């Protein structure tokens, strides 16, 4: 068994995929010499050289756009957009190019790229460096969206994403880089299939759907709820698109109550999508309205008391569950 943090798990997955397939290469700002602004890619340029782990100028449209072009020609780029907040700078390359060229070409063009990006709040990086924009990517047909909440999942999912022939956006919650809990990860390489949710904790009274930073918080909430006699099942979708709705619905058939927890703001968030799916496909199994725990609809504030208020807490998840009982 290896013991890896969230960041280390991502680094090992990258290392293994770079070793496995010569066509895989990385490009992004400060990923090479500096090892990534958070240290995620430390040592990779030393091992693989500056042409496979390449530093780029500050040019998001070029970082993603050239990756699209290289992917069409048969390479397997893993571009990094340093902060998810910078995705809007290259949105055209993401939305109109990476996501749509295959369909517009009637399937001729393939774009096997994996876009990695650090997202989320918790380190007081303020409004333009703390967003989590998965809902925008889920809403774009042609993109796969992966959002791990544990080191184990990050490792297995990133390897699958890189091997996937479709464009994948891989969200890495940056507070998880810093929390740095070690998890046990098998020594032998493994992958986790995209599009498969994971029941992280079994329970009977309520389903908590949670991902990213909220995975750990939902599990902590489930522990607290247990002490109050409420048995919570935590389902982590892991891949947001394509979503494994079946696993979520199976859980709801058992528990009849759902809380969805995500870090992103409530309105237009991914929670609304899950709630709509449940309303369509699990209506008869619901004994209570589907509740969402999410951030308020405001930009992320800087100062710690306000940032902590913004990010959904364990307590808010617990309260939301109790409100359904």
């Amino acid at each position, binding site marked *: 068994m290896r013991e890896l943090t969230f960041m280390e798990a991502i680094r090992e997955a990258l290392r293994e995929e770079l070793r496995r397939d010569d066509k895989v290469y990385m490009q992004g*700002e*400060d990923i090479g*010499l*500096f*090892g990534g*602004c958070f240290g995620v890619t430390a040592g990779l340029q030393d091992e693989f050289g500056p042409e496979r782990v390449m*530093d*780029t*100028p*500050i*040019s*998001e*449209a070029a970082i993603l756009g050239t990756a699209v072009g290289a992917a069409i020609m048969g390479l397997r780029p893993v571009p990094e957009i340093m902060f998810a*907040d*910078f995705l809007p*700078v290259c949105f055209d390359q993401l939305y109109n190019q990476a996501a749509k060229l295959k369909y517009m070409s009637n399937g001729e063009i393939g774009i096997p790229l994996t876009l990695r990006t650090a997202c989320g709040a918790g*380190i*007081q*990086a*303020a*409004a*333009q*460096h703390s967003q989590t924009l998965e809902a925008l990517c889920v809403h774009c047909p042609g993109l796969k969206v992966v959002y791990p909440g544990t080191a184990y999942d990050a490792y297995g999912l990133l390897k699958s994403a890189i091997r996937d022939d479709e464009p994948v956006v891989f969200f890495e919650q940056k507070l998880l880089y810093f929390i740095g809990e070690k998890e046990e990860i098998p020594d032998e390489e493994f992958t986790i299939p995209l599009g498969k949710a994971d029941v992280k904790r079994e329970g009977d009274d309520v389903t908590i759907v949670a991902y990213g930073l909220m995975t750990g918080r939902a599990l902590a909430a489930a522990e607290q709820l247990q002490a109050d006699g409420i048995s919570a099942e935590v389902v982590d979708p892991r891949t947001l698109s394509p979503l494994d709705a079946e696993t979520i619905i199976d859980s709801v058939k058992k528990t009849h109550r759902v809380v969805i927890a995500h870090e992103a703001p409530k309105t237009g968030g991914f929670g609304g999508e899950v709630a709509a799916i449940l309303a369509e496909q699990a209506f008869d199994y619901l004994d209570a309205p589907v509740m969402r725990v999410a951030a*308020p609809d*405001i*930009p992320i*504030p*800087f*100062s*710690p*008391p*306000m*940032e*902590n*208020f*913004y990010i959904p807490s364990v307590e808010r998840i617990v309260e939301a569950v109790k409100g359904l009982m």
Partner: protein
Amino acid sequence: MTTEERGLTDEQLVGMYRGMHRVRTFEMKAADEFAKGVMPGFVHLSVGQEAIAVGTVSGLRGDDFVSPTHRGHGCLIIKGMPMRAMFAEMLGRKTGVCGGKGCSFHMGNLSLGIYEINGILGSSSPIAVGSAFAMKKMGTDQVHLAYFGDGQSNLGSIHEAMNFAAIHKLPVVFICENNQFGISMRQSDAQAIEDIADRSVAYGFPGVSVDGNDVIAVHEVTQEAIKRARAGEGPTLIECKTYRWRGHFEGDPTPYRTDEEVAAWMEKCPIKRLRERLISLDILSEEQAEQIAEEVKQEVDEAYQQAWDDPMPAPEDALVLGY
């Protein structure tokens, strides 16, 4: 060339000296306090680049505007932003420039002619050009200084901003602070040209490179560009060549350069250079220089202490805007 011939009085020159000291002292205070772990988030300090803030902003009118970079504390200070409110923002206090909502690199104040610093590189330039567009439309003779770094110069939005400003002959002065790094990437690796000022040709307006550590030279070229802008002759690109003494952010271990390289640039300190020049011209004495340093230190320390004592916001203040 005498200082009178350069159009600067003794008083103005001593004022620039004081101004650079204020910026340097503020930034070093921020560095010291940040190292204690009391400031949340990130700060990007402009130590070594003070001549650009002072040279470009001195001589602006109160109703002129600036759009500083994320490394822009110097511009803010010289444009008149109170140090206490700046420190308070960096400490996350409720009394901060943005009420604690913004952070070090989101400060601004419209009444002082300071547009909100932007955390997305490249994005402040089109906005500054838009401001200049409005100035022209409204028939004022205000100008807008649009700052960006060498790293940022490779973003598409800078290209678009400059082209737009050129076709409309807008009263904007583009100021490129070439401190030779975009975090870890050297300017020489990020672009195939040496002088970013050369790019102005592509848009059809003048560009000039200047020693960014010579505050008088920076001031002179900026004043010329401002005159052009006010006269309706359109934009200018000024590239100020300088060097970033500290890391990109406080805590940056700077694996991408050597101590020797930094030390060599510290020899070209803009403050040291002006001091030596003013002393040699008998405009400033050693005693006066010391006196200025003392006064500035007191100013900065007082501002920090006041900010330190200011209250933190309540959690729910996140939901309320202050204006």
